[in-house]
């Protein structure tokens, strides 16, 4: 069975057994234990079964926690936790990365380390409802009284991530897919620079033809077409949100000049730059 399917099944089993319990929120402390876990992305720990022992920073203090089935610990980026595996339980940790959602299912059985682990990742970051749920969860941490809202939001977030496994169930195509994903992310970061099929192929150590094949097979469109779409997306955003002139926008989106940008934009959207701005400007 695929690791992602095993994790999905564990989440489904857990959700069918009842509601979430208590939610703990880690918060920043000036000092933290030397071996504490502290990373640049937020994490959410859900205790699926048994007990989970950990420590977090909480209101400036060191707080030891004995969490039980159904409890959740939310650890924002740059705050820490320190799990102690010397207990018995089954725990799911969700990692909210910049480019992907990670999941790590750990089983502990009174040893110094987790007795066994299953990991999987979903190759897209949190979007729309996922992001809003996470934001709402953070806000609920500030509420004066816990009226159960936090646990409902946390459950929503868990269900959102569970759904993401479903969406990507058929996309375990393996290495060529990984490479294509990596390159398309690279394009989404570097579209404003002078990049070409040749320079990107060189960057990834593959031939330009291989790169084109990868894009046709995995992305269903050519390399240049993909890059153009990324640039047009950004052009639309800049047109509607900012009052920059066209040359500035062209410079920021990687088009060689504004008249070329205008031609490509019109071909793809059926609108001139000015028409688009007039229609969608905030």
């Amino acid at each position, binding site marked *: 069975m695929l690791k992602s399917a095993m994790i999905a099944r564990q989440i489904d089993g857990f959700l069918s057994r009842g509601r979430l319990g208590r939610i703990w929120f880690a918060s920043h402390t000036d000092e933290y234990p030397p071996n504490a876990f502290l*990373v*640049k992305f937020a*994490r959410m720990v859900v205790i699926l079964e048994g007990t989970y022992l950990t420590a977090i920073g909480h209101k400036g203090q060191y707080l030891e926690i004995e969490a039980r089935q159904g409890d959740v610990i939310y650890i924002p980026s740059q705050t820490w936790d320190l799990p102690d595996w010397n207990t018995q339980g089954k725990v799911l940790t969700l990692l909210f*990365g910049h480019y*992907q959602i*990670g999941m790590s299912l*750990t089983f502990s059985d009174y040893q110094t380390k987790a007795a066994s682990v299953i*990991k999987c*990742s979903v190759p897209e970051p949190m979007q729309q409802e996922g992001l809003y749920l996470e934001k709402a969860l953070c806000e609920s941490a500030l509420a004066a009284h816990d009226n159960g809202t936090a646990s409902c939001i946390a459950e929503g977030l868990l269900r959102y991530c569970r759904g993401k496994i479903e969406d990507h169930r058929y996309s375990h195509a393996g290495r060529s897919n990984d490479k294509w994903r990596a390159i398309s992310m690279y394009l989404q970061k570097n579209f404003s620079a002078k990049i070409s099929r040749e320079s990107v192929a060189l*960057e990834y150590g593959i031939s330009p033809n291989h790169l084109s094949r990868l894009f046709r097979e995995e992305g269903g469109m050519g390399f240049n077409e993909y890059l153009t779409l990324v640039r047009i997306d950004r052009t639309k955003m800049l047109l509607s949100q900012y009052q920059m002139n066209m040359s500035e926008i062209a410079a920021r989106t990687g088009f060689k000049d504004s008249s070329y940008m205008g031609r490509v934009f019109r071909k793809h959207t059926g609108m001139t730059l000015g028409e688009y701005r007039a229609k969608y400007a905030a």
Partner: protein
Amino acid sequence: MNIIAVTACSTGIAETYMAAEVLERCARTRGHSIKVETQGALGIMDKLSSQDIASADIAILTNDIAINGDDRFKGIKTFHVSISDILESPQDIMSEINSEP
């Protein structure tokens, strides 16, 4: 010196990423260039390209769990270290690397 590294820990929830940051910081303060691939619960991130590997002088691989694709580093001087070595005494690893001829 050009350093490449791969970090991975058993749970993949934090130490993989912390070790990568520590290596990057230590290598850069010593004037080395470094690229670190992480293999944690977020999947494989910052994957080393064949070019990165071809131009590397040394490789640092963590040995807590099996590394995905460790056959890529054949022919490169490789250091196998544990995540806790990196987190607790990164300077020792860097000194060992520096003493290489």
